[in-house]
């Protein structure tokens, strides 16, 4: 199975332009025989929309449907604003394929600190989400997604792995900060992300694909640097920092087998989770 990451610079609030960017990337993916193409978080709308979050759900959902019916022969994960009930908005990403919206993933942890203020705009998922969330089979591989901040906690990825995901997709909009202390020319946050992605991949013995946004939005700048990490904790593909890029990688399913033979993925101490419920 060949995965691709379209590390694009979405134009803030301009869904028409962003739809064009998606189509360009999908055409490129088709020419490279990609089976599953992953776009960053809120790829159709841009990230830091502030009060525009309230105005773009219908247009972004329409763009999502357009992509779904335009490209039936490729699977893709696309970010959009989901409004399942009037006036309740969810930071979401959908897997599209075969002319259908196969599964919608909603962001579980809404960052609200520093420059982030997602709780002002987005609703938190209810408990039913954790029962309804499903994997999607793409070219025989079970796939599911969590969004950006969700990766900074162990249990969202763990849930996906426990319900059967062998490939965990992480669309993100990670802005760069602290340019005063670049490490090998990269923002320090990229090293934190690399550590997190390796951890999520190894602890769940699954492939992890991190598709980060790139480019400016008001004062902020998203650093890109998308990565694919093997279940054995190796970065097997990475995109450029600070500019648009497109990467592909052919999954090696034996790597998943090896990681599960030589790791403790089979163990699952349920009592710990019961204890966590009480805390």
């Amino acid at each position: 199975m060949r995965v691709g990451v379209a590390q694009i610079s979405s134009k803030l609030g301009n869904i028409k332009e962003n739809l064009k960017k998606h189509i360009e990337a999908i055409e490129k993916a088709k020419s490279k025989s990609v089976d599953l193409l992953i776009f960053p978080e809120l790829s159709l709308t841009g990230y830091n929309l502030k009060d525009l979050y309230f105005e773009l759900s219908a247009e972004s959902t329409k763009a999502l449907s357009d992509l779904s019916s335009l490209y039936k022969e490729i699977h893709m994960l696309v970010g959009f604003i989901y409004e399942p009930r009037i006036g309740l908005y969810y930071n979401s990403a959908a897997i599209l394929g075969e002319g259908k919206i196969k599964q919608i993933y909603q962001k579980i942890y809404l960052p609200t600190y520093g420059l982030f203020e997602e709780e002002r705009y987005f609703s938190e998922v209810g408990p039913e989400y954790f029962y309804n969330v499903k994997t999607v089979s793409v070219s025989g591989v079970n796939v599911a997604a969590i969004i950006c901040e969700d990766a900074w906690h162990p249990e969202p990825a763990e849930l996906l792995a426990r319900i059967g995901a062998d490939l965990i997709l992480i669309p993100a909009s990670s802005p760069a900060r602290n340019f005063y202390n670049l490490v090998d020319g990269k923002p320090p946050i990229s090293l934190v992300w690399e550590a997190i992605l390796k951890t999520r991949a190894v602890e769940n013995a699954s492939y992890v694909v991190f598709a980060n946004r790139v480019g400016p939005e008001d004062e902020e700048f998203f650093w890109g640097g998308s990565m694919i990490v093997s279940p054995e904790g190796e970065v097997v593909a990475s995109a450029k920092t600070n500019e648009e890029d497109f990467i592909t990688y052919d999954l090696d399913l034996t790597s998943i087998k090896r990681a599960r033979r030589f790791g403790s993925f089979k163990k699952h101490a349920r009592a710990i989770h019961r204890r966590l419920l009480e805390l």
Partner: protein
Amino acid sequence: MNFLNINEEKIVEYLAKRLRWYVHEFAKKRNGVVALSGGLDSSVTTCIAVRALGKENTFVYLLPSESTPKEDMDDALELIRMLEIPKENWETIDITDIVNLVEQKAGKYDKLARGNLMARTRMIIIHHKARIHDGLVIGTGDKSEILLGYFTKYGDAGVDVLPIGGLYKTQVRKIAQYLNVPRRIIEKPPSPRLWPGQTAEGELMLSYDLIDSILYLRFEKWMSDEEISNTLNLDVEKVKMVTNRVKETQHKRNLPEVFKLGFRDIGSDWRYPREWV
């Protein structure tokens, strides 16, 4: 202080990339317009503008007054030569007569009022030139000055974009070395030159090395005045002098207040991105 170990090359590359996008793609303007004083900040900003937009798309104005030392203009000219700014892209306009005329018509007051008039006269000229050249006004303020409120409202702060507004003065000096800005510009004491003998460090009674460390530790590392005093081995009153100055000048960094009347007014709940199509 680790914030001084900056990667100059990467920062310049990043700022130039962002400025290019801001002028050409966001604002859809062709050129950048800079007021060059011959001091550190405007020299570094001019270098970055040239990297971002090219020398053909950078317009540079020297706007001296009677309190501008001749060396500053010599230094500005040396930088223009170094950057090979085409001769139709730069000009010297002495503002003394304009400032005198305003004082004559509107009344003379004190040296600070005259200093503010100078900064605002420069602002008027630079925006006029930006209009003529289909350009954006590239501001030259640095982070230390912005945080201290060490600028004239609607004067040197009346600009479209502040490319080095995220760099402390001491970091700007390091960037200047990397950009091969003439040594005399890097070494001269920072001064707004609004009256003879004015220097920033003299007015603030602390070196920028210390000011920047205080600002960094207080506002980026969330340390208390007392913790900073211990860390820098500096009298806590000096630390407070800097942090109070930031608090007292907060109004200079905000848009003018609009008193709430409607359900929504411009202000706290008017949150739209700058890029709004």
